[in-house]
């Protein structure tokens, strides 16, 4: 399923909404999640999962082609942990 298919499903269920409003609603939800993580916040959606930010320490990396050492700075990366309900559903429980 891709974004446009998700929008279509929501639009089908809500015939009173314009398609462009459904697109805005879907975008707002995903943008809000990204904005929260950009602030360092955690997003917890019970039953679905939780998005959080993990810190990766600075390290000395290596260019695999040349073998040259490069300094990699500390950075923060997005992380998703599946919720219990969804995990159980994936396994047919």
């Amino acid at each position, binding site marked *: 399923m891709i974004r446009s298919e998700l929008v279509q499903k929501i639009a089908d269920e809500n015939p009173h909404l314009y398609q462009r409003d459904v697109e805005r609603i*879907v975008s707002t939800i995903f943008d809000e999640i*990204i904005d929260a993580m950009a602030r360092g916040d955690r*997003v917890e*959606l*019970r039953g679905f999962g939780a998005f959080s*930010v993990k810190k990766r320490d600075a390290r000395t990396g290596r260019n695999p082609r040349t073998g040259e050492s490069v300094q990699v700075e500390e950075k923060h*990366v997005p992380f998703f942990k599946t919720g219990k309900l969804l995990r159980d559903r994936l396994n047919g429980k």
Partner: protein
Amino acid sequence: MSEKTVTRMDLSEAVFREVGLSRNESAQLVEGVLAHMSDALAAGDQVKISSFGTFSVRDKAARVGRNPKTGQEVPIHPRRVLTFRPSHLMKDRVAAGNKS
């Protein structure tokens, strides 16, 4: 880092502010989005949200695990797990926003 926790309520509040539907309807729409994504994943489909990320379902084979406390061997049954791969946009925004 502020370390606040954002929930469904905050997402529906954002929809309410942005689109001007009732709070109740905004909450139902947030629920609908999560439900459709969950249904697709439960059916084994991949969910690809452009500029957000991709959720995919992976099959894990059975293996022998070990209780780390007792050292006892326990069989781990084959199972399906969900992996999320963030988009470049998400990675860039999260990295930029949390720069110290």
